[in-house]
């Protein structure tokens, strides 16, 4: 039972980038849409950024707005796009749905 199981659908990626302050990540990269940035789990984009101490690692959530099933190749293209935009990524998590249910948590404030 793993990611190749036919009940699993890859719908996006959480990419953690290092940046001092809120990163101005492009809102579209390789067809994927930036839907959320959080800092230590608290939503800081979109909408007003709460007046909190930001640490230097930000979780950037990219999804496919059309809800199509994504592939590993989409992850590689996304990371290349983030790199090209000048940001250092340190960690990636796949966002999967299992039997139609999200296998990932929302951010605080999302």
């Amino acid at each position, binding site marked *: *039972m*793993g*990611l190749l*199981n036919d*009940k*699993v659908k890859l719908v996006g990626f*959480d990419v953690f980038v290092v940046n001092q302050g809120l990163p101005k990540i492009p809102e579209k990269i390789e067809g994927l849409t930036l839907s959320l940035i*959080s800092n*230590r*789990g*608290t939503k800081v984009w979109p*909408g*007003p950024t*709460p*007046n*909190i*101490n930001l*640490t230097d*690692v930000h*979780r950037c959530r990219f999804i496919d707005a059309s809800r199509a099933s994504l592939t590993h190749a989409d992850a590689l293209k996304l990371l290349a796009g983030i790199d090209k935009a000048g940001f250092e990524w340190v960690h990636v*998590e*796949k*966002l*999967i749905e*299992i039997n139609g249910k999200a*296998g*990932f*948590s*929302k*951010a*605080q*404030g999302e």
Partner: protein
Amino acid sequence: MAKAQSKITLIRGDGIGPEISDAVMQIIEAAGANIVYDEVEAGLCSIEKTGQGITAECMDIINVNGVALKGPTTTPVGGGHKSINVTIRKALDLYVNLRPIKSIPGIETPFKNVDLLIVRENIEDTYGGIEHMQSTDVAQCLRLITRSGSLRAARFAFETARKLKRKTVTCVHKANIMKITDGLFLDAFREVAAEYSDIQFNDIIVDNCCMQLVTKPQQFDVLLLPNLFGDIVSDLCAGLIGGLGIAAGANIGTRAAVFEAVHGSAPDIAGKGLANPTAMLLSGVSMLRHLEQLDVADRIENAVFKVLKEGKWKTRDLGGTASTGEYTRAVIANL
């Protein structure tokens, strides 16, 4: 000279929250506190009206007033809504949770003369709520500890120890297993400790700490813990002095402070007049001290201790038969 009037945000919460809030407000008013309430909704009532446990507008009001008194709110288990308490703490950057643990006269427990203070880091650790299913078999929760967050929590612990004339700060951790995350927390603690030559410091593994707490809790003074251990150990310590019904709590940040009962919303007894308002009341006492209304705070605390020591008007959770209203009137009569 009377203190200037303070405007505070009141959140009644849900379950038993509204009735214990009423009791607390009655007692605070009878004691002569100079405060006015700016009430906002959070909890199930807010979820029903807005779809959110607490709205951004309510959060702004808490932020502007700077001080809030909060009743318990229900967090639906599993899917659905995030914890309202965690949302408030994170959005307002309330980076420490402060829990005084002191034996109360008239509350029988196996331990006498317990007097310790818990400082819990309140933002980080697994409470980022960053969780992923990595496969259909493996679930993961990210544990984030930062050097900056650990330093400011440690500094708060030492500053508070100095202010309250306490002698020793103990860092509670699991750095023998989580060598990087808790190792960072412990390193930050030691770095800050070096700045406070007037206060002793040591550290202890969390499992040993729990064993020591339930055998000889009097040996501890101030405990500093990362978020998850702090959550667990602070409730354990509440049990040492009689339970969550009498345990006060405060969430403190640089711009705002929220004082709240640490127990849940107890929907099974809501509206029956059985709830014990002591935890929220003692949280209110901490709030009044924070607002420097010290005489009023002392008056309420002394009245509570007197009522509990006499034992005639204890609520059911403390082995008595008094209703919320009877207990409230007894406290007011002893102010």
